[in-house]
């Protein structure tokens, strides 16, 4: 493949003090792809995303975004480069209204007219948010909060969107809805997506490629379909 990956991790180590969470993660994401990282609790999935965003510092190895090393770039600069994360547990701003949450997604932008249009566009994409635009974020239901978190991240105009456990704590019907939205964002808006999930079945159905993380290391990398039919994966992550 001659194409340049939009995101590449080369032997990345990181952790929290003496606890080493990542022990040499290497992965590649190509533009336009949906890539899933699956693994059990505490395998280092969320830490991988937090390390990409610079919230957890890289101790060894390199994180390349569009061919440039971003290890030393401070986290708040990344949205300006088109890299944005929807963090685990949504983390919307609970006491700010839906509109204010969206405004914060566009914090680094100063094109007010376009921001207003983008907010309207979010409401078209997520009509329920439009209905509740003056409601405080904390009063929304779990699924609505997840939609708000995704809409807020889209306000940064990302090229690459990192999604951390979008299905966490949601009813199955809502989860399906969220994954439909993710597919829509990928196809219609052309956003590359790196997805972290415990729900391996859903994630691999939505993704084109997948990585399996175990105790801070990548143990398997394959096309999503072949991972789904891999007997080992079926046993370990799909409960068969």
């Amino acid at each position, binding site marked *: 493949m001659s194409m340049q990956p939009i995101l590449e991790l080369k032997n990345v180590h990181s952790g929290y003090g003496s606890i080493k969470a990542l022990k040499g993660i290497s992965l590649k994401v190509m533009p336009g792809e949906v890539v899933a990282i699956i693994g059990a609790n505490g395998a280092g999935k969320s830490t991988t995303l937090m390390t990409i965003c610079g919230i957890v510092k890289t101790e060894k190895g390199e994180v390349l975004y569009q061919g440039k090393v971003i290890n030393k770039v401070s*986290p708040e600069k990344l*949205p300006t480069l088109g890299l944005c994360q929807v963090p685990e547990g949504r983390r919307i*701003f609970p006491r*700010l209204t839906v509109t204010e949450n969206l405004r*914060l997604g566009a914090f680094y932008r100063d094109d007010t007219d376009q921001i*207003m249009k983008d907010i309207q566009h979010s409401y078209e994409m997520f009509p329920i948010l439009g209905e509740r635009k003056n*409601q405080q974020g904390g009063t929304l239901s779990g699924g609505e909060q997840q939609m708000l978190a995704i809409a807020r991240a889209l306000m940064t105009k990302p090229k690459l969107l990192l999604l951390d456990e979008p299905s966490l704590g949601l009813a199955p019907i809502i989860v399906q809805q969220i994954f439909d939205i993710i597919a829509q964002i990928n196809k219609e808006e052309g956003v590359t997506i790196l997805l972290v999930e415990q729900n391996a079945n859903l994630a691999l159905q939505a993704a084109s490629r997948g990585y399996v993380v175990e105790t801070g290391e990548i143990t398997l990398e394959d096309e999503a379909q072949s991972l789904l039919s891999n007997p080992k994966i079926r046993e370990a992550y799909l409960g068969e």
Partner: protein
Amino acid sequence: MIQEFKKVWKQYTIGMLWLLGLLWPLLGIHPDGTMTFQTTFTVWTYILAGSFVCLVIYVTKVSGALKFFADPISRGLGNIKTTSTALPTWVWLAAGLIVALIYPQFAGRYGTDVAISVLLYICLGLGLNVVVGLAGMLDLGYIAFYGVGAYTYAILNTTYGLGFWVCLPMAAFFACVAGCIVGYPTLRMRGDYLAIVTLGFGEIIRIILNNWMELTNGPNGILGVKSIGIFLPVFENGFTFEHFWMKKLQLFYYFALGLAIVAAICVHRLNFSRVGRAWESIREDETAAELMGVNTFIYKLLAYAMGAIFAGLAGAFFAARMRFVSPESFTFLESAMVLCMVVLGGMGSIPGIILGVAALIALPEVFRQFESYRMLIFGATMVIMMLFRPAGLIPAKRVGTRSEEKEG
């Protein structure tokens, strides 16, 4: 019907017995070793009777026995509420301003003096509101910047003879610098840790003021700080400006009023700006704010510096009014007091803070006749207020108030 309120009466009985147990050691045990029961019992009976009446009214109201009486009242209150919201905000602001302007003409010397304190604390409270209410950082050493402002004016005035108007921006500047110096190392922490570190830094500044004899004259304080000088037009022998020292209390009142109004406008403008939005996002979720592209460190430092500026301005004015500064005025208790005002009034809400300050300055004055029970009543009032209005007297309005929503 009696059954429904059985629980209420049971809790009331337990509560009153607990109060008796609490009161007796306070009032019944004397330092000379004697133990009496009479005073305790008298005070307790008063409280018992008072709260009994309140409870009976509450119970009859809940059970609906007072409907014929309560309904017209609540309807009347509802009417007042609708008419008050029907009037535009500027009418209320103008009315408040007029009352504030003519207040010293009616209040005596004592009343004006209390009002100046209120206005000064409003300035402090609004400054702390930026740090605590908007950016969500618990700052327990806030009064240190008030001290820096006061000492800046006192030292520059007594040593170099600089006038108040030159020193006012300098006091703000030095307080801001102090805020940045203190803020830079502390703002890496979050939550409880930040509170403890700011508490420590607040004490450090006070102890420096207390011990740096050459500069601050230590615990003796600095005497002979000049009052505020103003130029007034004089029409004798043609038209000239003449220099006066501000001595009349009323002039101080108007100056403090101006300071408080400037602070209120600044905080209001900040709140509804991009900066205010960044602060609120940091308060809500720091990591999420960072992921959305908010430079949390710079904005936290800015909040700290802005808060310190207001404290510095108030401090310079304080020094000019008292004409004396000493480290005693800048203890932790003062920080806690300002924090109480902000929390009691409603974090992030400007009218709330004004009311909170007025309540906390005025209450101890009103209860002066109760002498030693004053602080007890003060504490009880605080507890009751926090029970019934946990978000503050006037909670910050959060829904649909942003300018951009009106645009869109």
